[in-house]
């Protein structure tokens, strides 16, 4: 037996998964509250003690860890035009597993500078201009950022023509600056690999210290990546396969959490018909979006407001006053679990279903119809996910859902909205053991085992 330990320091729970790489199989999985305010090792040790009871193993020579504790990897992305470089910068940050606090476009003003100071990002991403394009606004923003009363690592991934000048300005003003390739070198071309690699490197070099997680180095070498980044790695591996072991093909992973809902798609997303013209920024093959107003706990109020409290009340068959009271209770006690059937459990289930429906609708592309002298032409914005074959659910509210299939079905295309490019005939799967992040970590060294375990463990519902 060759045991490996994968640790996920979440904002609420520290989850540990033990794997025997020789078979391969999962030999145990436990969790304990994350103890960020005291010493993060206390929570980890508790989870490890439970794991020892379960497996009889106390010595873990290989320990791999990811983290979304202490607010995750908090980033701010700055671009020029909202639909172009700002969007590209946003995608670079999200694909690196960051929690995007805010995005800014055009010239930064004093109010925005003060706002960045209050938001306290871990990393700033400055972009703008295609190569050979705008310089004025980018110079303005670089100078403006120097007025901040804080410093953190900053990555410049804008117009390459002025990259050296920007680096000089930033370094002169005591910024820890890294230069990456432009996120949009020519119009509508998305080029985020270099920026993502820089974010990852900054994370590895700085984040354990920046987050006050240095005690963790007593137990493990380093935290390797933000948790969402691990989930993305797992998604890509599961879709594409590894060597002779085939993947499952194009897929979507919906991760409903307490504060946000993440959607990951691994799919080409290009138009499928000849009368469809693509518009806007190029779409990444592996794409992550995060919806901050769709969560089953911290952002439950926003979620219910989004669909209307009257709609929610009628679905769960009660009065609006009762729903309001329940919202208060749940937001005040986000840690409570709804295992017992009852109104609260029903509200939980409805919230998860709404989160799935809304988040996949926003993640998927859509068509616009144009009646031209040459017949009907469609313009596609975003990814066409109508042919995606696998929709995988994960996250507490889905794993504990009383009718998981019906919740995941909300990701399907709605005949009433034929222009939305959501999956048409997908099959539904559940990550019921919550292993995706662990498998992403494991895939760094043992991709073949991680792939095999995912294919075995993630069940069709």
């Amino acid at each position, binding site marked *: 037996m060759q045991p490996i330990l994968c640790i996920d320091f979440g904002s609420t729970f520290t989850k540990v998964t033990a794997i025997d790489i020789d078979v391969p199989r999962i030999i145990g999985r436990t969790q304990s509250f994350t103890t960020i305010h005291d010493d993060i090792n206390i929570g980890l040790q508790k989870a490890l003690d439970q794991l020892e009871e379960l497996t009889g193993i106390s010595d873990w020579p290989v320990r791999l860890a990811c983290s979304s504790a202490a607010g995750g990897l908090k980033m701010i992305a700055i671009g020029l035009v909202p*639909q172009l470089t700002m969007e590209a910068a946003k995608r670079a940050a999200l694909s690196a597993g960051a929690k995007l606090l805010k995005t800014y476009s055009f010239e930064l003003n004093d109010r925005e500078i003060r706002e960045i100071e209050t938001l306290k990002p871990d990393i700033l991403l400055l972009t*703008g201009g295609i190569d*050979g394009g*705008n310089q004025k606004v980018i110079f303005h923003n670089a100078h403006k950022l120097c007025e901040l009363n804080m410093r953190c690592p900053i990555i410049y991934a804008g117009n390459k023509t002025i990259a050296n000048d920007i680096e000089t300005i930033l370094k002169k003003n005591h910024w820890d600056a890294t230069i990456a390739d432009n996120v949009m070198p020519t119009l509508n071309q998305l080029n985020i690999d270099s920026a993502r690699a820089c974010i990852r490197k900054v994370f590895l070099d700085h984040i354990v210290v920046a987050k006050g997680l240095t005690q963790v180095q007593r137990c493990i070498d380093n935290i390797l990546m933000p948790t969402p980044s691990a989930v993305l790695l797992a998604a890509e591996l599961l879709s594409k396969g590894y060597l002779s072991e085939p993947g499952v093909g194009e897929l979507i992973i919906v991760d409903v959490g307490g504060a946000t809902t993440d959607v990951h798609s691994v799919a080409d997303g290009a138009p499928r018909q000849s009368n469809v*013209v693509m*518009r806007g920024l190029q779409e990444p093959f592996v794409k992550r979006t995060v919806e901050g107003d769709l969560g089953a706990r911290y952002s439950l109020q926003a979620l219910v407001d989004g669909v209307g409290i009257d709609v929610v009340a009628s679905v769960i068959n009660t009065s609006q006053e009762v729903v309001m009271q329940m919202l208060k209770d749940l937001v005040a006690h986000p840690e409570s679990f709804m295992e017992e059937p009852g109104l609260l459990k029903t509200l939980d289930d409805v919230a998860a279903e709404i989160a799935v429906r809304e988040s996949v609708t926003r993640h998927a592309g859509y068509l616009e119809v144009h009646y*031209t002298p*040459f017949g009907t*032409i469609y313009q596609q914005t975003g990814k066409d996910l109508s042919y995606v074959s696998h929709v995988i659910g994960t996250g507490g509210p889905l794993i504990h859902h009383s009718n998981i299939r019906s919740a995941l079905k909300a990701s399907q295309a709605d005949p009433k909205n034929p222009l939305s490019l959501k999956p048409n005939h997908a099959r539904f799967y559940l990550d019921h053991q919550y292993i995706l992040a662990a498998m992403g970590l494991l895939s760094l060294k043992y991709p073949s085992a991680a792939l095999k375990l995912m294919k075995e463990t993630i069940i069709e519902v």
Partner: protein
Amino acid sequence: MSSHTIVLGVIGADVHAVGNKILHYAYSQAGFNVVNLGVMVSQEEFIQAAIEADAKTMIVSSLYGHGELDCRGLRDKCIEAGLEKIKLYVGGNLVVGKTPFEEVQKKFLEMGFDRVYPPGSDPALSILDLEKDLGN
């Protein structure tokens, strides 16, 4: 030769791609840095591209007769977006029917365009104008 950037595209719901490709080739050969948006381009996309690319000129084509409708308000939006100085060129089958070109030209100049070209214009003409307007 010039390294000025121009934004090129076919506006509105127009899918005529051939002329667009010819113009792209001609302007590139003439030494311009061409950001080609292709067909079915909205006014907003022209403006966004011009900002990111720091373009000095927008060259708008329209072949399907709805040019007047599609181009209306483009100058105002450019001013609003901080592109007051950008040169706006337009050409093609700009209106339906057999309106004399002088009338069409007058109409588009009034709409804030700097240069208007009739159908079948030689790209060499607009290249000369570009060099004049951009000071080369």
